[in-house]
């Protein structure tokens, strides 16, 4: 019962945040002097054409009606214009790109597999590599292993991902010829090529975060391994491996989960950069193109989609806490 209440308060909180984020984003983009209808109207833009464009897009409505249409469109879908010329935007409708004649949702869905492939693989890689590096560093504190891991880590924190990526392309792609230098192959087409093309993007994107996680895990691990309960566990006669994983790491991992939740937002930004480095046509390329073509509907829809994705992902991380940290369950 308490668990149910915990879930419902979190869910309600998430909904409020979503509405607020949507309102703020919408306000920022649509209350500024740039008129999307003006941009879409073309040249020469007669007042007549402009009025028609505004009526079609719905930008002639008062701002609160526009916002309402937008928000309800996400839930129920909406249509633009009337009669034969009407354009249907099915739910969940994050807007309609009049330049590409496609709903923002469709555009995002078509590009999603590319970015998701990069992001998920990289996230798994950096979690594993970062936590493992941090644990080893903490256990071998002060040795050359520790120093090596920490030196690589601070270099990793300071190196922009595109720099790492370009150097990786230069070394492993052009000089050694081991891996392709860019492009994306869908998983359904050729799983092996999909994997081979993603190795460099994964490593590139994971490198920096792995470094941050290694530093964090190391600090946490050193702190936890000095606690009394570790001595108790050893005194009970548990094997060292069990002490480290079940007692030390179990507690050290909690702040790592927190940071992971926050990093999901940065992950999407990271894929934007990685996609450009490895010339992959994912969500990032979609956004950059939209910005260059001043496709405001697509830009707004994309931003909101990104924000929604992050809020939902954070909700999932919140739930993860319940499993990782028993204290949260007790508090709930």
């Amino acid at each position, binding site marked *: 019962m308490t668990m149910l209440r915990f879930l419902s308060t979190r869910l309600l909180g998430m909904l409020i945040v979503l509405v607020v984020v949507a309102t703020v984003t919408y306000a920022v983009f649509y209350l500024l002097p740039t008129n999307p209808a003006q941009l879409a109207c073309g040249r020469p833009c007669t007042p007549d054409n402009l009025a028609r464009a505004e009526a079609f897009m719905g930008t002639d409505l008062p701002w609160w009606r526009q916002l309402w249409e937008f928000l309800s469109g996400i839930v129920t879908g909406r249509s633009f214009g009337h009669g034969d010329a009407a354009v249907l935007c099915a739910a969940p409708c994050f807007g309609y790109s009049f330049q590409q004649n496609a709903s923002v949702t469709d555009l995002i869905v078509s590009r999603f597999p590319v970015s998701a492939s990069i992001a998920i693989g990289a996230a798994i890689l950096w979690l594993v590599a970062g936590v493992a590096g941090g644990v080893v560093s903490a256990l071998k504190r002060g040795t050359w292993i520790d120093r090596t891991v920490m030196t690589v880590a601070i270099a990793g924190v300071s190196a922009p991902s*595109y720099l790492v990526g370009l150097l990786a392309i230069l070394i492993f792609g052009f000089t050694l010829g081991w891996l392709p230098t860019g492009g994306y192959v869908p998983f359904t087409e050729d799983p092996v090529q999909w994997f081979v093309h993603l190795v460099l993007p994964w490593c590139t994107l994971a490198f920096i975060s792995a470094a941050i996680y290694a530093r964090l895990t190391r600090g946490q691990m050193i702190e936890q391994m000095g606690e009394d309960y570790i001595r108790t566990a050893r005194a009970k006669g548990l094997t060292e491996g069990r002490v480290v994983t079940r007692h030390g790491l179990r507690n050290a991992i909690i702040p790592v989960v927190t940071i992971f939740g926050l990093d999901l*937002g940065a992950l999407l930004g990271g894929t934007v950069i990685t996609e450009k480095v490895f010339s992959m046509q994912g969500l990032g390329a979609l956004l950059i193109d939209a910005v260059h073509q001043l496709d405001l509907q697509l830009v707004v829809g994309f931003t909101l989609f990104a924000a929604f994705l992050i809020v939902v992902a954070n909700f999932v991380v919140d739930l993860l806490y319940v499993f990782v940290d028993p204290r949260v369950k007790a508090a709930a």
Partner: protein
Amino acid sequence: MTAANTVEGEPVVAPRRGFRFVLRHLRRDPWASAGAVVIAVFVLAAVFAPLLTGITGQDPYTYHLNLLDDSGAPKGWGGGISARHWFGVEPLNGRDLFSIVVYGARISLLVGISATVISVLIGVLVGVTTGFFGGWYDRVVSRVVDVMFGFPVLVFLIALTAIVPSGVPRPVFMILVIGFFGWPSISRVIRGQAMSLRERSFVTASTAMGAGSWRVAFTQVLPNVTATIIVYTTIMVPSMIGFEAALSFLGVGVPPPTPSWGRTIGEAIGWVQTDPTYLVFPGAALFLITLAFNVLGDGLRDALDPKGARR
């Protein structure tokens, strides 16, 4: 720590916070000192960029098409490195790469430091007031901070560049938006400190003597968080520099012909195989300045947090 405080036979126990302690600690930390030196070199290079590029009589705008071969790649070894062009020249138009890297430091440091100042100002104001006053104001702001923490900032920054009014210079716009999104982290730290300071006796004393709450917040609480502010400022600069470089790399940042490391690295993508030095020099500059700020920040943090030191 106690051993450190008796150095030079001084029986006086030095305060563990405060500028003098930090400086002394830093001088014993070779990495942090090296970081400070590198930062100083970059700042000097940025300030005296015209003098520095004047040595070889170059500037970042003049084309040298005679130094390129038919494919547009620079002639000669290492991207056209010579006595006149220390870092070689740019492919396609032959501009002096050394000048571009030196002048690039200007925009990088300008945006990085200005944006940090904005973030720190907002963050400290919000942090001190939320921590000191608490109540519903604190609860509302904390929720906002929660949301901003997980926000896809880079995506939002890219999106915002689509609507920037053309009358606003791009660097100013970048400083404002990057600065605006950076305040939550420092505000949270300052808030925590302000909350604990609020309970201290000198704050109570000040209130008891009749000082208004704003006065107490800014004359009693604020001076006690300056050390934290300095550390966080140092740690924040490299990430701000990174945002500028990332936006320019993606082609939505500083517009040409203003030299920017990020944009040059972005343009170098197509030349990685034929002219790697085009990538290496601006890349190394960006990496070095970021690394320098990070190790200095680490050193400062160790100096101010004895518990975390010597890990």
